[in-house]
Structure formats: C-alpha cells, structure tokens
C-alpha cells in the first residue's frame, strides 16, 4: 500500500544508507575507494550498542559509534595512504574484519534491548511549522533526532565540498593529487582526515540500525546495506545532495516488496532487491555515454599517490 506511512518508513529505511553513502562519498572524494563500508557500519553498530547498553547514554553511544567507524577507517587509511596497498583488497579485508569484530563483541549483547529511557531520546519529534505541512510534514519532518542529523550532515557536507576552499582542496586531491601537491596542499593529512570522517559517518549509519531502527542487537545487523551504499555513491554521482534523494529511493525499494504483497501489483521482492544495483549500472552507462565530467568519479580514484612518480 503506497501511503504516507510507507514514505515515512522509506525515509527511516534510507537513513542508514544515507550516512554510509555520505561517508563513502567523502572518502572517495579524497581519491580512495573504501569497500569496507559494511565492516565499518557493523563496527559502529556494535560499539554504539555496547556503549549505549552499558552507559545508557545516547550521546556517548553515538560518539563511540563514530569513533569505532573511524578506527576501522584508520586501519584502511594506514594501509592505503601510508603503505599504498591495493585499495580494493584493503577495503574488502576491512569488511571481513568488521563483520568478525562485530560478531565477537556482540556475542554477549545478542538479543539485548535498550532501556525505555534510552529509546525516549530517539522518539519522533515534530518540527514546528514544517511538520504541519500536509503529507510532506508527516513524511519528512516527524522523525527521530537521528534522521534530522542525517539531513543536516548531507547539507553540511554538500556546502563543504562545493562552497569552501577546503572542499575544493579535497576535490583537487581526488582529481589530480600531483597538482594538489604542487599547490602545497597537505595531501596525506587531507586523505587521513577525510577517510576517518568517512569511517565515522559509516559507523553512525550502522549505529542507526542498532540503536534506533531495530533496536535490539542482532548479528550481522546491516545485512548487506553497506554494499547498497557503495552502489548509491555511484548512483548519486558523488554528490551529497543527490545522495539524500538516492538514499530514500533505495530505502523505499528495500521495504516496498512486502507492502505490495496482496495488492494487485504483485512484484517479487527479489526484483526490488535487484533494483538498486540495476539502477546503478544504468546510471553508470548513461554517465559514460554522455562523456560528461559531471557525475563522473574522482579521476584519481583508487590510484595510490607516489610523490616521486610525478
């Protein structure tokens, strides 16, 4: 049933994707393809849950979820920036590591639940004014605080990338690190900082699942959402603003299947599960056909930078 309730649920399903996608965009803008999204999400999810469960403090839980994601990214950054290891392999290794890490830490948390007091922090809050718009208000502006954090993060990142000098520097590194280096931009520092920031955002995406969406600890709670985020980066053309729309679209596709069951339009959930990837491939084909510089990946993506090779 396509109703307001469905669109509202699609936003919630899209939020973990949005955080992970923003994290991966900022990472890829620095010229690094980090396929460890799933691993970093799981690390953030489990540490956030563990901290929230022990301290009963939502803010600490969020903080530590971000730190956990960033620590995962630190492993990746050290391997690929300092040691110039293969980015694809390092990223995949991080995913496997993160899955194991979360399973290990989460063993004692399995099936645990947060207190009502904790959950109250993430209750639905209607934004005055905006929340009263018919339909749209209920869909977009009657959510928990984490969802608003997602909106704000996306907009702030967009402003940062396209409207600040530092953002320009970052994009320059992703496009042509040699030129950026010549312009005396501190490349290694930029790369480390943005890969860590990307990891922190992925960690928050995972934490949304374990702290707000589910919110019971369950092994492998992300269930492949990290990979959808990787596809979503391409789908949104490395643009944080478009990532908002993309995340909610993919979130909607994730949950539409069983809402259509029993209605006249009976399409298998498997079709919808495929849809994000098919859409991504179509977008890739379209972008390369148009040969446009817009929506293209950062030119130096996944190429290690050696200053001596200039």
């Amino acid at each position, binding site marked *: 049933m396509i109703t307001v309730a469905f669109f509202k649920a699609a936003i919630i399903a899209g939020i*973990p994707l949005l955080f992970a996608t923003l994290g991966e965009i900022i990472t890829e803008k620095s010229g690094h393809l980090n396929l460890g999204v799933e691993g970093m999400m799981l690390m953030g999810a489990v540490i956030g849950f563990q901290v929230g469960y022990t301290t009963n403090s939502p803010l600490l839980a969020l903080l530590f979820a971000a730190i956990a994601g960033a620590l995962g990214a630190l492993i990746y950054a050290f391997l690929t920036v300092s040691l110039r290891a293969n980015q694809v392999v390092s990223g995949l290794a991080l995913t496997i590591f993160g899955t194991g890490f979360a399973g290990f830490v989460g063993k004692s948390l399995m*099936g645990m639940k947060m207190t009502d007091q904790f959950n109250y922090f993430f209750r639905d809050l209607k934004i005055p004014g905006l929340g009263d718009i018919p339909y749209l208000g209920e869909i977009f502006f009657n959510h928990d605080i984490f969802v608003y954090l997602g909106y704000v993060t996306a907009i702030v990142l967009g402003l940062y990338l396209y409207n600040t000098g530092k953002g320009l520097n970052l994009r320059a590194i992703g496009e042509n690190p040699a030129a950026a280096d010549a312009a005396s931009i501190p490349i290694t520092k930029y790369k480390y900082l943005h890969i860590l920031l990307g990891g922190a955002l992925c960690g928050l995406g995972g934490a949304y699942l374990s702290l707000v969406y589910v919110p019971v600890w369950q092994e492998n709670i992300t269930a492949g959402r990290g990979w959808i985020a990787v596809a979503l980066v391409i789908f949104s053309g490395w643009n944080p603003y478009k990532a908002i729309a993309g995340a909610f679209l993919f979130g909607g596709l994730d949950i539409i299947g069983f809402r259509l069951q029993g209605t006249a339009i009976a399409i298998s959930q498997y079709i919808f599960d495929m849809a994000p990837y098919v859409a991504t491939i179509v977008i890739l084909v379209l972008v390369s056909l148009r040969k446009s510089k817009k929506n293209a990946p950062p030119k130096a993506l996944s190429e290690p930078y050696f200053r001596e090779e200039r």
Partner: protein
Amino acid sequence: MIKLFSILLSITLVLVMAVGCSQAPDQGQNDQGQNKEEKLKVGFVYIGSATDAGYTYAHDQGRLMLERELGDRVETIIKENVPETQECEKVMTDMIDQGCKVIFANSFGFQDYVVRVAEAHPDVIFLHCSGSIQGPNYSNYFGSIEEARYLSGIVAGMKTKTNKIGYVAAYNIPEVIRGINAFTLGVRSVNPDAVVMVKWTNTWLDAAKEKDAAIALLDAGADVIAQHQDTTGPQVAAEERGCWSIGYNADMSHAAPKAYMTAPLWNWGAYYVKAVQSILDGTWTNEPYWGTMKDGLIDLAPLTDVAPEGAQEAVDKIKEQMKAGTFDVFAGPIKDQSGKVVVPEGSTIPLEEQLSMKWFVEGVEGKIE
C-alpha cells in the same frame, strides 16, 4: 602439446595427493580406536550464532543438554555461522578430520552438501535438520512445531480486537506455510472472524527488514504480530505500537516486555540425547525422526501477563490432548482460501503431504508467491 601434458600431469599429481591425504587420517583413527576407548565425538554445524537468542540458540541448548546427560561418553564441537554454500562441506570434512563420528547440521540449505560428504564418509553418521534426505549413514530430523503454533494461534485469536493478526514469514517453503496454516487454524478455533495477514520477507536474519514487515502489517490494521523469523525485529515493532506479539524459538520477552505473550519452542535436547544414545548403543537406524509435543521436542513458552484472560485454560486443554496424542492439528474439515473443503471431516493431512504443503487454509490473507 607439452603445456597440455604438464597440466594433465599436475592435475594427476594433485589428485593422487588428495586421495593419499584423505586416506591417511582414517587409518590413524582406526589405530587410535584400537588402542583406547574414546569418547564419541559429535559435531554440530550451525547456520547462525549459538547466542542468537533464536533458532541456533535453541539447538545449542539441546547440545548442552546432550553434554549434561551423556557427558561421560560424548564430547561435542560446534561451528557457528556456517553459510549454506560449499563452505559447509569444508566445515564437515574438517570435523571428520578432528575425529567426529556423528554430525548434526541444523539448516535446510546444508542438505545437498550433507549428502555429498556423507557418501564420501560412510563410517560417519550425518543427521540433517528440516530436510528430507535419507541414506545408509544419513537421515533427517524435525518436528511438528505446528502443534505449538496452533496453541499460540489460540492465544492470538483470543487477544486480537481488530480481528486482524499479522504474520511475518520468512520464505514460502512448506515448513513456513505449514506453520501459518496451523497458526490460523488455532486462531479460528477460538475466533472464527479473525484473519491472518501474511507478509514474506525472504530473509531469516535481517532484523531491520523483518521489523519493517511487521510495521507494514500493523499499518494495515493488525494488532497481534506472529513471526516465523529468527530475529526479534517483529516483536519490537509490536511493542513500539503498543500491540501484542507471539515470538518463535525462544522466550522473547526481553525484547518486547509489553507485547510478547508466548512463543512456540523447540526442545532439541530431547532428540539429541535420544539419537546419540541410540548410536552409542548401536541401535541407530536411518529412520527419519519426527518429534511432537508428546515426545517433548515441541513446547509452548509460558504465557506472560500480557496474554488474554482464559487463554491459559484454553491452551492447557488442547495441550493435554496433544500430549496424549489424541489431538491432530490438521484434522478435517479444513477449507482452503477459496472456501472449498479440501480435507473432509474425519480425515487428516498425512505427514508426507504436510511436508510438501503449498496452499493456505481459509482465513489466511496472502499469497504464496
């Protein structure tokens, strides 16, 4: 030509080595067996984690019971989170290398791999959960969880006010369909006006998605949520909406204290002890095992305070009959979704037909896609 020859030669060498290596440990074990009396080593291949508070947790409780009861003659090893791929073949072979003489595999998807490994190791006994395989040294085991689902249906049917009950279902395989039908028969035995709405998630273990399926059902007017999933996602959805829920596999009250009423339970220990005892005694046969409430394999979790008044008595009454073996969940008359009587009064659905059930009884709203 030389290249082709060298490739063929290498393949031959590898094959020879593989054969040589695979024979060596067997001989070693025979020697050991002659030297001293060893404990029977039993391997458990788990689809999930032993602490998943659900399906695999229930199996592991059964394993622990086996260790408690026969610990002086049996030792067990486990491997968790084994995927339903070629990987599980490796896990089983590895267990055999470690000396396992009995292997339990607890998921349907292991079936084909179990057959392959079993045929290569005729001296090891393989027992596979929920499938239909049978051979000289392998067989299957499962049970009539439908009995407990029927009882939980009684509780749900008495609780619902909207007369709409949501059922979050995993995959449209006979096991799940059978459960939905039994549940619905239970619901309608006390509340003939109630319907059971089914949503398929095509997942066993995706808490977020399964919770959302429950929300879709609650949005459609359901006020009681039942589930055939391995996570507590649907329970949490019911809790958040102030509705009620029926769990599965384990007591799920910790996840939804204000919603959870009861849950159909497996008591795998009842079977594991029995099967291993018969192997120790040398009386094991490859007859498939089908446990019931009478055997103690199936049970219903204690009803919580949330459960409706009078439910305990209604459940106990039927449970007594089940324990005595006089109650048949699928006794006619049963109508299908179109209202046609498919099981006439006085007859029942034989077990073989239950195992391949692909239709819904009257009162289920949903399609087998």
